[in-house]
């Protein structure tokens, strides 16, 4: 572990407090946007079609960006407070740039009515739009700002880790593959951070390429880029961003769970092979988003299915069994932190399995772009990533004894979790009934049963959104109080 002096620690503490408050405030607001969408689809309210797509765009961009930013911010804090010196000015640059980008996106959507969806599938932002050109330009510039912030962040962390642990090969664990005994042990969180953030760098560069193409198109409408190429760039960027959000979270599960189970979790050959394989699966799995583009070369479709299927081996046989070996007969106390971590891994497993089902080309031809898609990524995010983030915040601000006494948070957590699973179940049921995703409502569908099933499931799902918001609110009582105390108390680390 690196030695961090108290001044530097205080600065890092300020930064993570800032990220935490930002996350805690924005997260429920974005849930409310999701609630509005489902209420509209359930024909309970009438937003208007244009407003629905504005809300959908802000909800998608907001959630993807917020969850990645908070996962990255938490990983940054964990690394900076324990293992490596990270430049606080870079940290604040990332935070400020992200916030400017977010403000830009809020203006572009809520005022400019930009509504091209979170992945802005080319050339939709430029053709048949119901929003003005300035809103498209502002969205692109805002996304470029977010991309720059994340790219610099990822490069800085990878560079700092490589410098501290003897080079790039060392932080991805290659020193464990030789016959020589390893001199300095590598903390698992460092290995996972490297394996997550390096594909992130590549993805953000791909994002930069298509966003610059978009910017050129915006100012020169006569340009016409190859659709399939841009689609590949967009999905590579989007898929990788979402994927590494969860992997950043796993970094601190590896680091923090042993503190509760009392069992160490070390890097070994198997872990290195597993995470190095994951590196390639992260890069190639995105092809499964393009199965219905029949003109894409067939080997790439098959590569997407292979990468998606084989990613299950390191994820389950190594990481999930690692979690099981941490917990099994460990006499662990089920306070809020290990509970969120275990149930977060369970959410990841369920959402991941549904993703693997959909990554089967022979199944995707029926489930593609139905509600099965939001079903699996909401499972992965809402009952996976979000639980890890909440667990991190509780770990940050509460001692183990305080966690034992805090029964309210556990009540809030179970309320949130059960409601969240019931909520995603409505999406799964929609997917199995072939209900299309991204419909403002289902009134235009000529098949009466599809219309009524879609609307009924949407209306039912809103009940669970209200309940999960109540669960979140209950946890917030504790989190906000503890975060304030933790921030003010210099002795709390």
């Amino acid at each position: 572990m690196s030695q961090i002096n108290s001044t530097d620690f205080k600065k890092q503490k300020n930064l993570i407090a800032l990220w935490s408050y930002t996350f805690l405030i924005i997260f429920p607001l974005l849930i409310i946007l999701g609630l509005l969408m489902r209420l509209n689809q359930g024909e309970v309210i009438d937003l208007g079609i244009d407003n629905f797509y504005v809300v959908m765009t802000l909800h998608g961009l907001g959630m993807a960006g917020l969850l990645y930013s908070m996962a990255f911010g938490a990983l940054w804090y964990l690394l900076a407070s324990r293992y490596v010196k990270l430049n606080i000015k870079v940290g604040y640059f990332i935070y400020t740039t992200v916030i400017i980008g977010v403000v830009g996106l809020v203006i572009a959507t809520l005022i400019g009515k930009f509504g091209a969806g979170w992945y802005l599938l080319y050339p939709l932002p430029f053709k048949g739009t119901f929003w003005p050109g300035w809103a498209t330009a502002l969205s692109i510039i805002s996304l470029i700002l977010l991309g720059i912030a994340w790219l610099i962040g990822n490069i800085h962390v990878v560079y700092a880790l490589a410098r501290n642990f003897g080079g790039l090969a060392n932080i991805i664990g290659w020193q464990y593959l030789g016959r020589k005994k390893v001199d300095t042990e590598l903390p698992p969180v460092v290995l996972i951070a490297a394996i997550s953030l390096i594909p992130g760098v590549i993805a953000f560069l791909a994002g930069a390429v298509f966003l610059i193409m978009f910017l050129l198109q915006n100012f020169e409408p006569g340009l016409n880029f190859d659709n399939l190429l841009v689609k590949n760039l967009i999905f590579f960027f989007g898929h990788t961003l979402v994927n590494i959000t969860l992997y950043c979270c796993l970094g601190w599960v590896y680091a923090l769970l042993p503190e509760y189970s009392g069992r160490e979790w070390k890097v070994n050959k198997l872990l290195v092979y597993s995470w190095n394989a994951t590196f390639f699966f992260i890069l190639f799995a995105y092809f499964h988003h393009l199965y219905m583009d029949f003109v894409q070369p067939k080997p790439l479709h098959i590569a997407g299915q292979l990468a998606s299927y084989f990613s299950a081996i390191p994820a389950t046989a190594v990481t999930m069994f690692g979690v099981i070996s941490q917990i099994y007969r460990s006499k662990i106390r089920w306070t809020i932190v290990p509970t969120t971590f275990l149930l977060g891994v369970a959410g990841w497993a369920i959402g991941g399995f549904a993703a693997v089902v959909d990554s089967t080309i022979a199944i995707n031809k029926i489930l593609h772009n139905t509600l099965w898609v939001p079903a699996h990524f909401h499972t992965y995010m809402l009952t996976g990533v979000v639980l890890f983030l909440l667990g991190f915040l509780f770990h940050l601000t509460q001692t183990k004894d305080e966690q034992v006494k805090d029964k309210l948070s556990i009540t809030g957590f179970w309320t949130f979790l059960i409601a969240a699973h019931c909520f995603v179940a409505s999406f799964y049921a929609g997917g199995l009934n072939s209900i299309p995703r991204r419909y403002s409502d289902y009134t235009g569908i000529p098949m009466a049963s599809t219309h009524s099933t879609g609307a009924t499931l949407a209306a039912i799902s809103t009940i669970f959104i209200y309940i999960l918001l109540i669960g979140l609110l209950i946890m917030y009582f504790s989190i906000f109080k503890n975060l304030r105390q933790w921030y003010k108390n210099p002795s709390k680390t």
Partner: protein
Amino acid sequence: MDIFNTLLSIQSFAATISFIAGALVVSVVAFLMISSKNVEEKHLAKEKVYKVRDKYFVFLSACIVAGLFISLRLLPYSPFESHPDQEVTVVAMQWAWKMGIGKTDLSPSEFQGINEVTVESGKHIQFLVTSADVNHNFAIYNNAGDLVAQTQAMPGYQNKLDYIFPEAGEYHVLCLEYCGLAHGFMTATIHVK
């Protein structure tokens, strides 16, 4: 076309295996939470877990190989030697479908089609799908509301979708790629004799 499409069983297959997987995950979580009340030597507990993991690894590998072996034989892509009985040109545009029997040399924007077409059941139909503006998705639903086949409609490219309608009746076309304001209202009809 294949047994999955004919029996429309993909949805129920996906539901069944996902339910089993979900139930398994919940059972493991419950087992872990209950078993963690007891304590066992760290290395003994790990040894037990690793034994199960080894078996799981073999089981998972077998499932992956079997899954790939079966599913990769059911790809929806047209083989090179495909000889359809009938071709249907499909052009998507914001926010309508233009369809017509046969191939066309006209550009997508020049092509004049209408939002309904008639084909025969039991025949190999090949839809030649493209777009005049943004990305759309040509999705065919039967009258009961089951999605039976789909492909993307992409500007600058033509996707070939092969399908044999199992029975006569009305089939509906919906757009399954978000394409702007009236995305949810972009429909067409396929009459199958």
